[in-house]
């Protein structure tokens, strides 16, 4: 009899089918729910602190409000902004800047990323570069700093392979230039000061040529300067001193010619915290 044949699969009873469906569904809910909860771990443990674009709200609020669309990425003229991957947990799809790779030099002049943000994760309450607070620069390895060593800098910073770019207003207002196309010839290395977007704006304002002809673009406070240090020897040396006007954009970290950048950005730190 075919019903007794062991080869014919037994049709499961309704109860058994329902039991199996229930177990499967429970596994699905636990699996997908659990995997989504795993995505909280990198965030709650702060595994990968990131430099955020100008105007970013406090990290928690920033991640809450960011809709992960990348419109800020698309408008950045120096392509400084990237979206994080899954390993960033809740930061996945949220914008960050890797300053050493490509810093924000504010060459859009109008904080385009802030204007592009549809949710206000990059707050619309700021209008000018000097109002940004992304972090603060710090001379991390003074022993490596060329200025501290009293050395100059000649040639291309970061090497010919490096394809980061910055805007040089005096050369081309609208198109940023690759750093490997722009050699320097400096008796004392002051790249972090001379290329600082805040310092560049202050210089422009001093000679009566504020960016876009708008005096509101003029940063009220200096961000960085070279201070002479007495080393008791014949050579003169200098130390880059970070000042209150520093916004943490990361250009100094980007352009620093030493293998490991001598100057780095402390993400989200404020000048007042560091100089308390």
């Amino acid at each position, binding site marked *: 009899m075919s019903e007794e044949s062991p080869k014919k699969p037994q049709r499961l009873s309704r109860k058994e089918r329902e039991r199996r469906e229930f177990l499967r*569904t429970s596994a*699905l809910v636990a699996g997908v729910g659990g995997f*989504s909860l795993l995505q909280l771990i990198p965030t709650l443990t702060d595994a990968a602190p990131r430099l955020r674009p100008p105007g970013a709200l406090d990290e928690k609020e920033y991640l809450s409000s960011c*809709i992960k669309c990348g419109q800020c990425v*698309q408008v950045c003229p120096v392509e400084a902004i990237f979206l994080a*991957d*899954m390993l960033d947990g*809740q930061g996945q*799809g949220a914008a960050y800047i890797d300053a050493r790779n490509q810093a924000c030099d504010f060459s859009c002049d109008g904080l385009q990323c802030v204007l592009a943000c*549809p949710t206000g994760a990059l707050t619309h309450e700021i209008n000018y570069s000097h109002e940004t607070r992304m972090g603060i620069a710090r001379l991390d390895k003074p022993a490596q700093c060329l200025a501290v060593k009293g050395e100059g800098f000649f040639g291309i910073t970061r090497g010919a392979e490096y394809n980061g770019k910055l805007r040089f207003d005096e050369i081309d207002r609208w198109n940023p230039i690759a750093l490997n196309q722009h050699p320097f010839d400096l008796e004392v290395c002051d790249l972090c000061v001379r290329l600082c977007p805040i310092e560049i704006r202050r210089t422009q304002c001093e000679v009566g040529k504020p960016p876009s002809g708008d005096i509101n673009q003029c940063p009220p406070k200096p961000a960085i300067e070279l201070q002479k240090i007495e080393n008791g020897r014949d050579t003169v040396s200098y130390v880059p001193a970070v000042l209150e006007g520093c916004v943490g954009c990361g250009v100094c970290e980007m352009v620093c010619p030493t293998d490991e950048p001598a100057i780095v950005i402390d993400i989200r730190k404020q000048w007042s915290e560091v100089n308390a």
Partner: protein
Amino acid sequence: MRIGKYCINVMLGKSPTKTPPAQISEEAKALHQKKKESGEIDKVKAREEHEIYRETHNKKWRTRRWATILFINLLFVASYALDIQLLEGALTASRFLGFHMADLNSALQVVLAFKTVLINLLIGFVTVLLMWILLGGRTFCSWVCPYHLLSEFAEMVHIKLVEKKIIKNHLFNRKARTWFYIFFAVLAFATGYTVYETISPTGILSRALIYGPTVALLWVAFLLTVEIFYSRRAWCRYVCPIGLTYGFVGTITPMKVNYNVVDCHHEGDCRKVCLVPHVLEWTIKGRSPEINVELGPDCTRCGMCIDVCPTDSLNFHFKGLSTKK
């Protein structure tokens, strides 16, 4: 109205039931009775007709739909890659010719997590809401979502493997999607993070297309693998809260698929190709409450049922514009 409520319950996971006689119109009753008595439909002939139609008929709606999915997603890609700026951003939020658009589910998640409504997000939300009210709610799923397209390919492989008896399909309880919907809403509100965004294959795929491949694509690949080997269309059917959000929009849209019972052979080919076959329960013999009845809000307006129907019993219908058969 009672039918409407019933359809929403079915969308939320209730199993479809036989239509109570009290809810079947006299006209429909008479037709059901007539079909039952006369046995007018020659079963073998009907089966044959269905099979011939399936093999010879070109899948008009599927072609249009795939072209639309590709066009919209490539428009995002081209806008950034070629800097033509027509459609900037990603599927979660964008600007079309400068006008804000926000995915309804992503916007809801952000509002729940951030607990503040920003004007640009509101504008984007309302624009997209109005658009999908006009176009049919879950139309987003089958006409825009890039995961839907990949999932359709996975489904084809899945069906082949089932036909060859290499694998079996496993069903889940459809209520799971409703539970996920509540879970992700509560999670966003409680943690302040848009947790669903981190596992949403729609967002992951959209961003990967526009901004370059990511590790997160492995998750999407895993989901597709599960859909090929274990459970047909599992993510869209049992998990995706985006689908349910647009399903709610589908309750108030004039854009529907209409079912006309008169010529139907009740062979059920439409239910076999459907992502959400519970919306096609009306096509079972004796269940249709009216001569013409609109499919429920969970319908993605993909047109697969229209493509396989040899009797022209299923059609797109825009309330007030097109006349029912």
